[in-house]
């Protein structure tokens, strides 16, 4: 049984230019202890879809669909109910470690606050547990760091603190929204290593939102590729890298730098505006394989091989095949 089951999730923002369909009919599942990579360009709706699950979006967003987590529908739950889930059972790590900590308080107090609120720990117990958590995320000399302010920590350390805070209550799901984007490469590797370690030691299911396929290849079990608010491909990580089906995925893989492979491939064109619901394949204007069909109909998701879904009329691994 899956831990999280999302069905027909749609998110619409009402803006001055009319409604923007940020996420359209997204469905997916997440199993216990699984690492799901969610990939796509900026603005493809990957962050928005996960933030909408915990109602973290501004009020201009209207969310529809269903999201079953542990027997309840998150999207239909009251705010009070959601507060007992946020940070306790589903935790978030955001992209910006430099600004995600309150500058006015010691990092230890900020982690302790979460522990005391959700687990009703005493001040002393919270402090002890906080030091354990800092140690778990491999912060050196945690007894000292616990009493430091955010501005005294480096970006990588702050991201570790954010992860420690997210793990504080031993959540079932950890949603990491581009956790490494703001960090430099060596620190990225450390954070990813930490993610793997957490999954192994604590069995936490992790959703890793990123635009970096290299990161996904490293840690994810399964990958979900999003484009213009829709899921265009979903597959176990090995299948995706061995036999990418959607031309967008193929394009993304071509854009991953590899030593000695010469010039990087780019995907021509730009991400489409999401103001109107598509009547054709959203990727068609940028797609080398697009034909009459692609421009007139929206492709449905279909299962190409076991557990490998793709929404394309002309799937295939080879960029030249079309």
């Amino acid at each position, binding site marked *: 049984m899956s831990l999280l089951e999302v069905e027909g999730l749609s998110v619409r923002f009402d803006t001055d230019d009319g409604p923007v369909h940020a996420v359209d009919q997204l469905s997916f599942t997440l199993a216990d202890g699984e690492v799901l990579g969610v990939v796509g360009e900026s603005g493809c709706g990957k962050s928005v879809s996960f933030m909408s699950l915990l109602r973290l979006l501004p009020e201009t967003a209207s969310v529809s669909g269903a999201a079953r987590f542990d027997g309840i529908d998150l999207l239909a739950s009251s705010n009070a109910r959601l507060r007992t889930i*946020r940070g306790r059972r589903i935790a978030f790590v955001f992209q910006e470690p430099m600004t995600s900590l309150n500058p006015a308080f010691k990092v230890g107090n900020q982690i302790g*606050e979460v522990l005391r609120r959700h687990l009703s720990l005493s001040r002393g117990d919270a402090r002890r547990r906080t030091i354990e958590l800092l140690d778990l995320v491999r912060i050196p000399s945690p*007894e000292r760091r616990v*009493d430091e302010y955010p501005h005294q920590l480096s970006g990588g350390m702050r991201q570790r603190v954010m992860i420690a805070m997210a793990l504080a209550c031993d959540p079932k799901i950890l949603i990491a929204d581009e956790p490494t984007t703001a960090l430099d490469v060596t620190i990225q590797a450390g954070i990813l290593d930490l993610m793997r370690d957490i999954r192994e030691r604590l069995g936490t299911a992790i959703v890793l939102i990123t635009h970096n396929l290299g990161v996904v290849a490293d840690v994810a079990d399964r990958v979900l590729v999003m484009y213009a608010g829709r899921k265009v491909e979903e597959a176990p990580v090995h299948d995706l890298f061995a036999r990418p089906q959607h031309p967008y995925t193929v394009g993304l893989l071509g854009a991953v730098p590899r030593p000695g492979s010469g010039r990087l491939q780019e995907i021509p064109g730009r991400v489409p505006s999401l103001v109107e619901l598509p009547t054709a394949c959203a990727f068609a204007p940028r797609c080398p394989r697009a034909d009459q069909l692609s421009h007139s109909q929206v492709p449905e998701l279909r299962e190409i091989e076991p557990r490998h879904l793709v929404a394309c009329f002309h799937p295939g691994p080879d960029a030249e095949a079309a």
Partner: protein
Amino acid sequence: MGFVDATSTLINPRARRRRLLRKRFLRRPLAIVGLIVALTFITCAIFAPVIAPYSASATDFNALLAHSSRHHLLGTDELGRDVLSRILWGARASIEAGVFSTLLAMTVAVPIGIIAGYYRGWVDAVIARVTDVLLAFPFLIVAVGLAAILGPSLKNATIALGIGAAPALIRVARGEALALREEDYVRAAVANGASDLRILTRHVFPNMLSTLIVQATVAIPAAIIGEAVLSFLGLGVQPPTPSWGVMLADAQSYLSQAPRLAVYPGVAIFLCSLSFNLLGDGLRDILDPRTTR
């Protein structure tokens, strides 16, 4: 818990930050002057009974409208009361009105401003429009009107000044809350399941404190001048209790014979409000890292 050794004070982050702030403060001579003068006035206000050579209402009929002398350093007024003593006692009314009206304004304005800025929507629209309307009236007009309604006394003048200062502070608190609600750490706190009350008290309020402190150092001198105005108009401190405003009002009738009676309280008002303003400018500079020079 931790170990203590000789180097711990060097590593201790708080001590380091405090030292840094002190260093930046010491580099601003005007702010230091402001601090010293303001503290002097506050000390005078607190210890007036001890420092003042005479009681504020003691009359010396041998020296009416006297010039400065060994007995009366700043001379005496038309009833033979020692001007220096009256200025020292008068500092009490000024500091009291300045500090308490600002505190009152803060307690009223900050929660309202935070709620407006954080929740936005119709609550904000109502609060912001009402504030705009109130701000259309000059501060002193509002204070004079309120003091006239409440009746003349130092307490009522303080209340009137506090309420008069509130709209400007609501606007400041609202603006800060509007900016802070978009901070990543506020978003992170929501994602961690914090309640609204917790977010407002732990994440929004503490981060606007430095702005509020600077606002307070601007509001205090405004209230000190306001108290003098109200007392001058007979809406504040009532004679014979000394206040700089009352002294100015009394001096009016003797302006041609003894202009010094108006000059001394006037200088006191000027120095006192200037000192708080200088202090406020200095604090704004050191608390705002963007103005580091």
